[in-house]
């Protein structure tokens, strides 16, 4: 597989040249946008992540799966306070399930059975997970009103939701997260 190495070197070289200039790497603030990937809705429609929107208000994206206990724990914990969070900050939580075809059809009954009010999408072959560079789940992102990633966190423990809502509050007010 020597060709793969040369291929990568070309890529690296070009990337280094781009880096070498004293220009900002991404947009002026250095924030990343989410990639455009096709997901499925629970009623089998196609949804593109480029269309994710909350009218300029903050968005939480949570990667989870029905078989992942800490993920379910996180979403259950937030479900109890979600109404208050929405009323206070206007935040929307998007739960992206990485259940593959063995459990993906089970997501809709599961989410309804748990009485969750989230916007839920299926990432059946982990395309969005790869695009967002997620290694382990639960992995949670906070996006600002311009759909830029301003914060992320891996794993969940009781009480982590308080840090999450604090971040969302700051984002909703347009405050900087530098202190985090």
């Amino acid at each position, binding site marked *: 597989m020597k060709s793969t190495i040369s291929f990568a070197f070309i890529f690296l070289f070009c990337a280094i040249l781009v880096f070498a200039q004293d220009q900002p790497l991404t947009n002026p603030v250095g924030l990343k946008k989410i990639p455009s990937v096709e997901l499925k809705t629970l009623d089998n429609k196609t949804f593109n992540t480029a269309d994710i929107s909350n009218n300029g208000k903050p968005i939480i994206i949570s990667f989870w799966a029905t078989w992942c206990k800490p993920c379910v724990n996180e979403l259950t914990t937030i479900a109890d306070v979600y109404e208050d969070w929405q009323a206070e900050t206007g935040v929307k939580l998007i739960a992206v399930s990485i259940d593959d075809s063995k459990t993906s059809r089970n997501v809709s009954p599961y*989410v309804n059975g748990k009485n969750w009010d989230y916007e839920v999408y299926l990432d059946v072959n982990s395309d969005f997970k790869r695009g967002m560079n997620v290694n382990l789940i639960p992995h949670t992102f906070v996006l600002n009103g311009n759909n830029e990633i301003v914060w992320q966190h891996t794993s969940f423990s009781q009480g982590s939701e308080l840090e999450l809502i604090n971040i969302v509050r700051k984002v909703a007010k347009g405050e900087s997260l530098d202190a985090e």
Partner: protein
Amino acid sequence: MRYKYAFVIVVIIFCFFSNSPARAQGVEKFLKNSQISGNFQFDGMYYNKDSMIGAPDVPQKVLMNAFANINYTNGPFSAGFRFENYLYPLQGYDARYKGIGIPYRFVSFEKDKFTITVGNSYDQFGSGLVYRTWQDPSLGLDNSLDGLNVKVNPWKGITLKGIWGKQRFYFDWGPGIVRGADAEFSINDIFTKLNDKALRVSIGGSFVSKYQEVDDPIFKLPKNVAAYGGRASVSYKNFLFNGEYAHKINDPSTINNRIYKPGNATLIQLTYAKKGMGFYLAAIRTDNMSFKSDLNAEGNDLNINYIPSLAKQTTYSLPAIYTYGTQPNGEFGMQAQGIYTFKKKSKLGGKYGTNLSLTYSRYNAIDKKQIDENTPIDSTGTLGYKSDFFKIGKNAYYENFNFEFSKKFSKTFKLIVDYFYIQYNAAVIEGHAMPNIHSHTVVVDMTFNINDKNSIRSELQHMYTKQGEGSWAFALVEYTIAPKWFFSVSDMYNYGNDISEKRLHYYSVATAFAIGSTRIALNYGRQRAGILCVGGVCRYVPAANGLSLSISTSF
């Protein structure tokens, strides 16, 4: 080789030219849209000798798996690669991973209604019964297709895909060529009149063929093997039905003992979901449906298709000891699940609501009859067997009944109680002589919140069984200081083993630190093979004794 260097030079010149002041504005725009992201994961372990638990001696003492993904995007253009490093791979991962390399790289762009990817790609047609390429580093699995992947949406509601290439095989390619196409039609999106109808229908079809140069002194082996399938999904109000059928022509392989019988697979799923409740019914029948790009491949190597398992998956340590494994040569499986929430402030719901779920799943053999009186079932070089589609085989492979109660009692106390009955055909699933396991497991999972940041979670589990290794007890205490720190102590005790020397403790001490997207975890102890969930994440851990370090981050 020369043309490659020429290409490198062209690319470099291009990069330099794009720096010239004349194009500064263009460069600025280019850079503004440029985005580099990636991730990194390292798992290393120091192994102690431990013949008691059957941990093999590790001559290198320390082993490691690591990878890094680097992705570049600029509007419709994206490119990326994954660097992988296994020196040597951790216990439980295939030894053929040993090495360093870049087994995954791609360039992709979107233009008009096309998305064209060259290099490695992951994709699936329908549920994957004829084609699925995917990757799971915790399972040590990657069957990505290196070649072409073209997707086009010629009309709203129509998606066409084409793939052509070779599959990744550790740090090399598999010998076969895989070619395929898929079409999906979402009827309601195609006809504007039907856009808002409650009845939604989509249909799809796929065709995949593999070509492999094969020469066998005894058998006439097919060089081309095709598989094709059709699917339909219908939803109406709270109901959703999904049906898929796939067929594969004769494909004598190592897995099916070189029989010439064609294969097929059927998957049917029905769900009903309404706020507060959900029901799921599913059945799968597969018959000789292992489809690989090398007819000599074994295990999980070079799978072209994917057979979803309908067996209940659990992450609690004791019931996870007996987890079902898909039988590639044929199985008949089903699952039924109901999940219900008693609303907040109702009689049974209490202040925070109460959640109940019931799951039943079962796997049996498919019906197999001799093709004639003189030929035993699965005889090499024959049609193998005859099978009645609607007849379920007598041999039971697996059965799982699970009941779960979950409730938050107060701001400070949450409780989950689980019961599992598992029947496990070890002879079939593990492939060695062992009696059928019948086990009963109870799990009590409690979370106490001391204050906003500090909490204690405890799991108590007990599995009763007379077969296999006998009964087990398990206890775990986790202490977390949200959101950064995690500590845990656990012990899994095989107190019911018939052999008194094997009544062992699998103790474990762990700590983890998480900040942003970075997580560092240290673990010391003994581990059984299985899916392990600690400190808020799940991954597969093989049997071992030692000290492990995991680092995961993304940027």
